[in-house]
């Protein structure tokens, strides 16, 4: 697949690099004991430390260090046993210290490679340059007052992992796939919740264009893009804009841009000052961060299973289709739901997982996902509990209800919230497996339809379905299809 972009004067190649900011999952902030909880009243999760009061000092949160190591391991990156915190100096209303504590020269995590899946089924390796720990800034609100900007420091000092890619992406699709991959990795590793709408993950998007094979062009950086769709729009609009400028004989300014949701395009930041000079230097309030290889090994051992490994295991050990496996691992919550349900079904049915994998995965990806889609809900908001779902599948496995009835019961479960056993009981949906009763019924049906029996025996095989249908009709669909088959065929065949 060619990633070249056709301009008016020929082909262009786009070069994309991403700096993803992922908020670390932790109870308290990177350098202070204030809470990281989302959505609280302004400035209620602020200490004297995170509001940079005079004389306050940073003390690092051990869990944030571990989360960065875990993320580095998930990305297959080098973990640096010694790293240094630097101050990045600049003035802004939501930066109370007048500097951000970050890592510049010696980050906690070094290079690595992640493999991303593309739509055409191919894969591509994207280089990760580094991951470093840093503080988030507070939040400025410019639209609350005619002449004032309001500042909320609740987020000030929350730990972020900045994950910097190599400029390895050549299309919006690749960038989207990479972002998705990183999101999946941090969510599986349990290091970032990946909630884009809460700003837990956002990207600075670096885009440049060049003639194929030529030197890198001048790049622009579009800040704080907080959805994959927006990021792809940013890239596409930047390609169009930059190619347009260059083909008109202009030059690209190295600048910071902002994404405007309304137009789906980017614009120059108005407050852009003269070239930044961040005056990085090692933070004298902190010593170098050092930890042992033993800690890294321990975290690696305790690392949760990541999506790719999980998918491979589903296929190999559970014998489920690679399609189902991919669908299930795409979101960590789906995979978690599936595995919990599988375990619960195993417990109920006392059958081995390998026999249940297909049934359970089909039910989750088919029935459950279908219902959730209709309801517009996510898996974590599923109206059907694991317990009820396992009960439903168990009724099917032990022959109490048929697959068809199971679908009916599921509908009722969604409507009423009742347990499947109650529904089956109350509605009398239990499958009839009583051979005596079914045999009597078959005899009656054959007697009442002697002409059709003649035709069947005369070679009209298709009529077999008619007789099955009659049995089902009389039992209200509750006859056990296997029992029906066992009895009907010999009687018809005479």
């Amino acid at each position, binding site marked *: 697949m060619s990633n070249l972009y056709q301009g008016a004067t020929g082909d262009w190649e786009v070069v994309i690099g991403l700096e993803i900011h992922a908020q670390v999952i932790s109870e308290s902030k990177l350098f202070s004991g204030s809470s990281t909880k989302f959505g609280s009243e302004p400035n209620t999760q602020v200490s004297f430390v995170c509001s940079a009061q005079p004389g306050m000092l940073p003390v690092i949160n051990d869990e944030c260090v571990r989360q960065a190591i875990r993320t580095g391991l998930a990305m297959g990156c080098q973990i640096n046993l010694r790293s240094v915190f630097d101050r990045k100096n600049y003035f802004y209303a939501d930066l109370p210290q007048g500097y951000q504590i970050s890592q510049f020269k010696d980050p906690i995590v070094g290079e690595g490679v992640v493999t991303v899946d593309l739509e055409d089924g191919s894969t591509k390796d994207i280089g990760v340059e580094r991951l470093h720990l840093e503080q988030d800034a507070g939040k400025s609100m410019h639209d609350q007052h005619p002449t004032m900007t309001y*500042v909320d420091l609740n987020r000030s000092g929350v730990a972020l992992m900045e994950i910097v890619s190599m400029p390895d992406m050549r299309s919006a699709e690749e960038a989207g796939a990479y972002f998705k991959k990183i999101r999946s990795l941090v969510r599986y590793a349990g290091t970032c919740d990946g909630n884009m709408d809460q700003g837990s993950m956002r990207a600075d998007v670096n885009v440049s264009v060049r003639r194929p094979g030529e030197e890198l062009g001048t790049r622009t950086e579009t800040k704080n893009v907080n959805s994959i769709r927006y990021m792809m729009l940013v890239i596409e609009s930047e390609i169009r804009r930059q190619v347009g400028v260059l083909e008109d004989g202009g030059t690209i300014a190295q600048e910071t841009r902002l994404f405007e949701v309304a137009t789906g395009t980017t614009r120059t930041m108005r407050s852009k000052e003269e070239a930044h000079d961040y005056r990085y230097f090692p933070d004298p309030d902190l010593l170098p961060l050092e930890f042992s290889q033993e800690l890294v090994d321990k975290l690696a051992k305790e690392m949760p299973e990541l999506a790719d490994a999980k998918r491979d295991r589903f296929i190999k050990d559970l014998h489920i289709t690679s399609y189902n496996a991919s669908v299930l691992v795409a979101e960590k919550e789906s995979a978690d739901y599936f595995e919990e349900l599988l375990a619960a079904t195993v417990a109920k049915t006392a059958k081995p997982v390998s026999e249940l994998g297909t049934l359970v995965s089909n039910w989750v990806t088919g029935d459950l996902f279908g219902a959730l889609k209709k309801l517009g809900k996510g898996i974590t908001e599923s109206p059907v509990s694991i317990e009820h779902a396992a009960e439903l599948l168990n009724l099917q496995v032990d022959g109490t209800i048929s697959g068809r009835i199971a679908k009916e019961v599921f509908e009722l479960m969604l409507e009423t919230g009742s347990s499947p056993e109650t529904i089956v009981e109350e509605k009398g949906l239990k499958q009839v497996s009583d051979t005596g009763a079914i045999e009597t019924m078959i005899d009656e049906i054959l007697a009442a339809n002697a002409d059709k029996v003649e035709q069947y025996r005369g070679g009209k095989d298709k009529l077999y379905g008619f007789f099955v249908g009659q049995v089902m009709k009389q039992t209200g669909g509750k006859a056990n299809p296997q029992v029906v088959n066992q009895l009907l065929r010999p009687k018809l065949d005479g």
Partner: protein
Amino acid sequence: MSVDKETVAKIANLARIAVSEDELESTAGELNNILDWVEQLSEVDTDGVEPMTSVVAAALPRRVDEVTDGGYRDQVLKNAPASEHGFFAVPKVIE
């Protein structure tokens, strides 16, 4: 390396300190005096010498991840020159 008026203006802007046009010259002079004096460090052979990152030979202590602080907004805002509705208030910023 000599600091001129433009450089003083540039670093004063980086440091966010207003320096009037007529102060620039004298400030440049003062800074040059100091910079010329510290220039003597170039005499010292520092090849292969590690820069000092901390005077104490200790590992960075790490604290347990617990919420132990915050939750006192009034105290945080108490000394603020301007605050409204629980926010710090500053002159409007246009992005």
